[in-house]
């Protein structure tokens, strides 16, 4: 009798966990995809990273109740995954990423010439961002997400908020320098 009760209890608990996980997918999958894409700049790779992030969540579903901010926690998971992937797939030529980026950038209401110029500009900016030191680059990329405050960026990167601010300041200066004189750093 006791066994039957515990089995029923387990089943209902599992169902509740599954539902919670599916709700998290519905709520955060697109945000996580955008975070992943900003680093990987490849749609299928970014989707794989999101999938992997939720599989990690599945493995730790017992501790889901202890997490205070699911959104930041998930972004941190996917951030670590994409950085790890980026490190491993360093062999892929940078031009592939930029071509993919040019393909997905919105270009509505632009003439063909304007569109080509915009793509060239964005490509140049992204190439300059790639030249930034890793710490500054990471803060710069995460700060582009409007839904992330500096406190949340600090939580994702596991640093203090003041550190985030100083890195962001340095990143902006370096980026401006790079855009003016592309060979000024390194």
């Amino acid at each position, binding site marked *: 009798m006791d*066994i039957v009760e515990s089995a029923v209890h387990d089943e209902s*608990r*599992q169902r509740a966990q599954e539902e919670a996980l599916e709700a998290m997918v519905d709520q955060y999958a697109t945000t996580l995809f955008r975070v992943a894409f900003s680093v990987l700049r490849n749609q299928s790779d970014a989707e794989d990273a999101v*999938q992997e992030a939720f599989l990690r969540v599945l493995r730790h579903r017992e501790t889901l109740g202890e997490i205070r901010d699911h959104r930041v926690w998930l972004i941190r998971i996917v951030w670590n995954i994409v950085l790890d992937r980026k490190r491993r797939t360093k062999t892929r030529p940078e031009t592939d990423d930029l071509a993919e980026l040019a393909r*997905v*950038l919105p270009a509505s209401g632009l003439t063909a010439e304007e569109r080509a110029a915009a793509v060239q500009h964005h490509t140049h900016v992204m190439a*300059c961002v790639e030249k930034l030191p890793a710490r500054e680059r990471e803060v710069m990329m995460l700060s*582009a997400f409007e839904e992330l405050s500096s406190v949340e960026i600090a939580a994702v990167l596991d640093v203090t908020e003041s550190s985030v601010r100083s890195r962001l300041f340095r990143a902006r200066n370096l*980026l*401006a320098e790079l855009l003016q004189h592309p060979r000024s750093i390194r």
Partner: protein
Amino acid sequence: MSFSSQNDLGRSTGAIEAEETLRLVASLPAPRGIEDRVKAGVRAADRQARVMSWPLPSEKARWTQVSGIRAAAAAAIVFVVAGGGWGVYSHIRVASVPTAVAAPQRGELGAGGGGAGMSAAAARRTPKTLDGPVVAPEASTKQRTAEGKTNLPPHGHRAGSAAEKSRASVAAQR
């Protein structure tokens, strides 16, 4: 406007433009149906994980009941492994250990070889020559004295021809 302020303005404009690009990349829409694909992947992984973790669907509920079964299974595995090992061991016939070990003789290395017995680096090998003709067994001393005179070969001449041998034997018979 001074040059430095113009430069600062240019820099800040560049940085703002760069941040706009980053914001554009960050706000790109996710592909359609990503949620469904992720959910399907998670469900498939969950099903697989459950099969892998069978028969322990939960960690707390039946731990005490299952621990006994686990202990019994572990004991059975140990018994089977140990029994198999003993079966193999008992069927192996251990070869008798030789009481002496054959070692090469030092003399075989030649006169100069071996030195203190540690190395054969300076060994000179003496070739084995063919054996000379076998000397026929000589007649006994008694018989030889009785005969008085013998046809002994000159000193140093080891070999005797077949004719000499036969002669000597005839003389001995007489």
